[in-house]
């Protein structure tokens, strides 16, 4: 009897050891705690409340999500990298991605590694992948690419018997016709001093056939196309909010959602707001590229590419687990779920045609089309400085303090000085 009991105990113990080892293989990072800094948006909310608990349940990895406002995130991550080194997973937007490579870990060794999620790189929209990872080393996995979109009220255009604007003149006629003093603005634009103001003007510059640099990297903001595009924007703004120079993204999203703007240009994030359940214009919107100056004008690009990705900090004490989480979060299944519950943008080809995602945000195909022709403002760590140097003169032009030509002359000179100081022209 005693002997049988002993054998039974031994067998039980062996079974326990076996299952424990199988369990451990399934959860190799059980008990690991990781920290991620992420820009505070609908995406970060779902990461903190939906995906992080799921990750912990499925893998045993505890993910601490620090949701940081956009204006503070860059400083927070840079200071952390230079000092405390607490973040395992880092979150650059496109313009910071080049400088962040200095403290990011290449993810190449983990791609295809046994036990690690398959990133299915072929499914990531090629233009987006190329902008994020131009070299051999892979640092970033995008989860929410964004850009600027031109939006318009389909219902109002139909009521007025007007077609979707194709050229500047069409847009001007529509803005003038739909503008109603006190109740409807013909054109909306984020005119408050800030990067949004810059980035919303650049698609208009492209629509005039202009560009930000020539082939020698000399700024061409003040080219004829540049001046024409800014003058055209100022003309459209006659049908825009009267306080345009203090009319920021916040005001723009609100007014457009309330149905007080007939058409406009804004960050693609506005599409999710316009199609949200509490929007008065849900289902009434049309989206597209900004109309070109004239039919024969070929735009060199559609917009400036923006958006967010995840990477592993090279000072992380748990690089393997961090890489696993980055690959998991940006994998086909998870990132699709993330975007359906988050900002509703597409980073993958399969997402661009995903019916569930398009149902949440009908602008997804337009965003993808815009992203396909979008580019980086500048491929280097000076992007922030260039943006800052454009902010003040552009805001001065919008508020009427400077003419379009004078403002762009100031900005172009400032850009040339920044790049000269950084040594780009010596190269």
């Amino acid at each position, binding site marked *: 009897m005693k002997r049988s009991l002993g054998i039974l105990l031994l067998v039980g113990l062996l079974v326990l050891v076996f299952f424990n080892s199988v369990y451990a293989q399934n959860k190799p990072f059980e008990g690991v705690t990781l920290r991620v800094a992420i820009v505070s948006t609908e995406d970060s909310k779902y990461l903190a409340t939906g995906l992080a608990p799921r990750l912990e349940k499925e893998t045993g990895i505890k993910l601490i999500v620090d949701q940081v406002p956009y204006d503070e995130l*860059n*400083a927070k991550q*840079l*200071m952390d*990298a*230079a000092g405390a080194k607490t973040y395992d997973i880092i979150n650059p937007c496109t313009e910071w991605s080049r*400088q962040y490579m*200095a*403290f990011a870990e290449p993810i190449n060794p983990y791609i295809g590694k046994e036990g690690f999620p398959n990133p299915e790189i072929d499914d990531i929209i090629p233009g987006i992948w190329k902008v994020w990872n131009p070299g051999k080393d892979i640092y970033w996995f995008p989860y929410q690419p964004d850009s600027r979109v031109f939006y318009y009220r389909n219902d109002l255009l139909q009521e007025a018997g007007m077609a979707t604007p194709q050229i500047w003149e069409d847009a001007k006629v529509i803005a003038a016709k739909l503008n109603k*003093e*006190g109740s409807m603005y013909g054109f909306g634009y984020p*005119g*408050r*001093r*800030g990067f949004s103001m810059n980035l919303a003007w650049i698609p208009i510059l492209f629509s005039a056939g202009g560009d930000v640099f020539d082939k020698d990297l000399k700024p061409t903001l003040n080219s004829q196309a540049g001046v024409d595009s800014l003058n055209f924007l100022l003309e459209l703004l006659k049908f825009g*909010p*009267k*306080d*345009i*120079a*203090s*009319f*920021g993204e916040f*005001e723009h999203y609100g*007014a457009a959602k309330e149905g*007080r703007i007939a058409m406009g240009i804004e960050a693609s994030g506005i599409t999710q707001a316009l199609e949200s359940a509490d929007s008065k214009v849900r289902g009434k919107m049309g989206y597209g590229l900004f109309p070109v100056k004239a039919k024969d004008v070929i735009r060199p690009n559609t917009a400036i590419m923006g958006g967010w990705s995840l990477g592993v900090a090279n000072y992380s004490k748990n690089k393997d687990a961090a890489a696993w989480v980055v690959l998991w979060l940006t994998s086909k299944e998870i990132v699709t779920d993330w975007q359906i519950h988050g900002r509703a943008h597409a980073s993958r080809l399969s997402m661009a045609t995903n019916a569930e995602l398009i149902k949440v945000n009908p602008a997804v195909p337009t965003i993808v089309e815009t992203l396909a022709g979008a580019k980086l403002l500048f491929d280097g*760590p000076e992007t*922030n*400085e260039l943006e*800052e140097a454009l902010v*003040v*003169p552009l*805001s*001065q032009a*919008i*508020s*009427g*303090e*400077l003419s379009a030509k004078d403002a762009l002359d100031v900005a172009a000179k400032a850009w040339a000085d920044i790049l000269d100081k950084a040594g780009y022209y010596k190269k």
Partner: protein
Amino acid sequence: MAINLRTRKKLFPYLLLIPTLVLLVCIVIYPLIFSLNLSFYSYDLKKFTLGKQFVGIQNFIDAFKDTQFLKALKITVLFMLIAIPIEFVVGLSIALLLNKDIRGSKTIRTLVIIPMMVTPIIVGLQWRFLFNYDMGLISQVLRVLHISEGFNILGNHSYALAGVALADIWQWTPFVILLCYSGLRSLPIEPYEAVTMDGATSWQTFKYITLPLLKPVIVITILLRTMDAFRIYDMIYTMTFGGPGASTETASFYVYRVSFKLFHMGYGSALSYILLIITIIIANLFVNSLKKVWEG
């Protein structure tokens, strides 16, 4: 080695001081020394892996050639010239009124300090909404009264600074009221009795008795408001972000932009020290004038 009771008694106060000293060293003295040291380096946080290069006083020299910084200083002074006199005149007037012990003055005294209790970030947001052309309360009232179609102050480069000053006046006039009121309450009663006997008018009493006696309080009030207004940053951040153009970019906001948008940490530290030195000079001027008042 045993310490005798007398030595223990002598050491005890120093022991009690240690926690405060440690805290001061950690959160005040160390950052001050660190940023002073940083101000002599060229340090770009965007390229922190390259390290920092010693540049001596070059950052300080550059500051005086930096037209944007000099313009920001001018805007700061202009802001102070708009806000502080109004805060002072309105604050002193209300304090004089409250000193008359009018009906409901206790309630007014309580209500009047509410704006001071709100953080400047919230005050900025609140005034941004109030000033909103479409939905703001001010615009709505103007529309209802058929005075104007709306009120555009923050979007106008000529008036945006006045808009920020208005928010500052709303928040900090209560501070002036509080100080002046407590000053008025502590004035001796005898001079007032004497001038009443002599048949002085209210204006004469105010000009020859109240104002001279209140001078030390006035100097301190203006000193504190000047130092605070010189550092204005939070309201600018939420109300205008320095715009339109650079029309509301104050010196502190410019330092923020250099340090945390452009990440030129060395240069940003040098600019901070220049602002600190200017603040110390202003404080000294006021303290000297206070001394003269006391001696007079």
